[in-house]
């Protein structure tokens, strides 16, 4: 005789049948995300780029700053690194097809004879650094600002949001450009003392990236602040916040333990949609020679350098251009996928 199941067990089994084994909303969203192949492909591509950026010194066949002036503007699969004795004796110099035993520039070389492929590999570092650090800066500032405004409410909220409204009316890119010019001019002057000196030292050691981060991050937190405030406003009247307050939780505790965990997910997804914009901005800044400092390779700077000889050497623009496009495409696909996955969960339809 089989033991009779209790009502509780039966209910649980039935629930499992209907609603699946107890999965958290997070797991639900990730299942949804996994089903979206294009988004997964985007995520995989980003991981590959991340690995490329991490192991750039191992992956790049040549030094990204090594000039081979006899081999400038070599077409793809031609051109040799003249620094080895073997190449000097056995390989043809210029624009000749691949020969056995001669190492060659896969993607050709730029105007100074630097291997384009190695520069592209190192370029991943700049783009990814901008993607993650600038969005990190924007999230941290925006989240803090928005949460404080939303939580404080009243007059504080009013004033803080007026400031955001004010900054919205500021033409961002011209101001970014002016600020970058200012920093770069100071750096060229060789200011070494005080706060600016520290900044300039940091900038030099990041290859000119710091100012790009500051410029992009500092002016893109506005949308984040508005969203965070809106979310906080809607959550702060919820019962669980009231319950926390009823058992005597302090404001700081409520914000960090109850509000932020609830609002951070949607905000991060929102931010992931903004990442392509940051990569664009870096490329634009590099295009007008205000991005990274040479010889640090950035895709935008490479397009700028190659653009002058577009007619005869389209590959100098094509390679970094394709890399830039694929990366933003991957971020877009992943961002869309994340949003779809989490939105479907929020709306309760799958």
């Amino acid at each position, binding site marked *: 005789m089989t033991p009779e199941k209790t009502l509780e067990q039966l209910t649980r089994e039935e629930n499992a049948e209907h609603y699946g084994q107890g999965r958290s909303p997070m797991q639900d969203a990730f299942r949804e995300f996994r089903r979206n192949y294009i988004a997964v492909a985007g995520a995989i591509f980003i991981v590959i780029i991340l690995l490329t950026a991490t192991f750039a010194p191992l992956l790049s066949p040549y030094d990204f700053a090594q000039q081979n002036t006899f081999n400038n503007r070599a077409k793809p699969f031609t051109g040799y690194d003249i620094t080895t004795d073997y190449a000097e004796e056995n390989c043809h110099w210029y624009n000749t097809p691949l020969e056995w035993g001669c190492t060659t520039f896969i993607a050709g070389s730029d105007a100074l004879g630097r291997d384009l492929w190695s520069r592209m590999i190192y370029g991943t570092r700049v783009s990814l650094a901008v993607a993650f650090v600038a969005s990190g800066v924007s999230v941290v500032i925006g989240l803090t600002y928005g949460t404080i405004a939303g939580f404080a409410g009243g007059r504080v909220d009013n004033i803080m949001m007026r400031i955001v409204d*004010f900054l*919205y*009316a*500021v*033409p*961002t*890119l*011209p*101001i970014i*450009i*002016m*600020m970058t*010019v*200012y920093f770069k*001019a*100071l750096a*060229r*002057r060789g200011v070494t003392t005080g706060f600016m000196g520290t900044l300039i030292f940091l900038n030099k050691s990041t290859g000119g990236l710091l100012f790009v981060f500051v410029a992009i991050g500092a002016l893109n937190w506005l949308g984040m602040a508005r969203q965070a405030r809106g979310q906080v406003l809607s959550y702060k009247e919820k019962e669980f916040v009231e319950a926390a307050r009823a058992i005597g939780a302090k404001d700081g505790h409520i914000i960090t333990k109850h509000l932020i965990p609830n609002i951070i997910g949607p905000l991060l997804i929102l931010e992931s949609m903004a990442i*392509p914009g940051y*990569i*664009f*901005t870096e*490329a*634009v800044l590099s*295009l*007008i020679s*205000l991005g990274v400092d040479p010889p640090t390779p950035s895709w*935008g700077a490479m*397009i700028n350098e190659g*653009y002058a000889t*577009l*007619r005869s050497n*389209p590959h100098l*623009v*094509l390679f970094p*251009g*394709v890399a*830039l*496009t694929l990366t*933003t*495409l991957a971020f*877009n*696909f992943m961002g*869309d996928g994340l949003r779809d996955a989490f939105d479907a969960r929020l709306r309760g339809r799958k």
Partner: protein
Amino acid sequence: MLRYIIRRLLIAIPVVFLVILATFVLVHAMPGGPFDAVGMKAMPEHIKIVLERRYGLDKPLYEQFARYVLNIFKGDFGPMFRQPSQTVRDIIGQTFPISIQLGLMSLIVAFVLGIPIGIIAALNHNSLLDYVVTFTAVLSRSIPNIVLAPLLIYVFAVQLDWFPVAFWGAHPPFFLGFIPRLNSEFFMHAFLPVMSLGTGMAAGIARLTRAGLLEVLSSDYIRTARAKGLRERAVIVIHALKNSLIPVVTVLGPLLAALITGSFVIELMFAINGMGRRFVTSIGQREYFLQTSLVLLYGFLLIMANLLVDLMYAWFDPRIRYD
């Protein structure tokens, strides 16, 4: 409504003032000045002093700023240091209409391409056509215009030789200040820049139109309209379309900002003598007045555009009241 507009414009005044104050201080804080060198040689000290006095640069900064702001009301935006035969006002007169032409045409292209494509995709929801449109939209949203512009130039101008490589096909004076002669030269020159600037925006608009229309089509009042026996076309055009465009209007603000950003790149790449290119080429030259005036103009444009967007928002969504 009128009171709302007036209030917005009044709020804009301190914004513009602070923006130009910040820019003015920033450009003057930069090391070096406009008269540091003649060509490759250093400017003799006594000539430099005379020139700086000539342009009032020896005065204290607040006095220079006050004079600059007062002169703006007289329509004088200050002198050019490197091109003494022209003033900043002349430069703006030459470049501003061209940038406006480029921007307006790109916007038109974005809407004319984007909205119908979005509608078609939404009406054929989950069909092959829908997937193709969605995919193409993401693709063209992901191609930055600093990649698209050289690509278009290489394919259509260099290889196929259909369009000119660079420059703008219209020169001042313009009718009403910004309308050029609409001849073939103008359109041939404008095609590639406008396409590189407009298609990305068209993709964004198509995506939003599609999402908006899908949302609206599943709502109750559309079912009512269908239940009344209206023709499908009437349901879509009269009932659904206007509401489905609300999300499009909400992104107009960021879109216009992106237009400004994009015009920097496009004007540089196509060697168009517009404001963005002028701004970028002047950054190393310490043209104090030109830079401040251009930032002022950008700020003014942005404020006007945002106001326009808010007003359109109210028109599209009558639940929104400004008073």
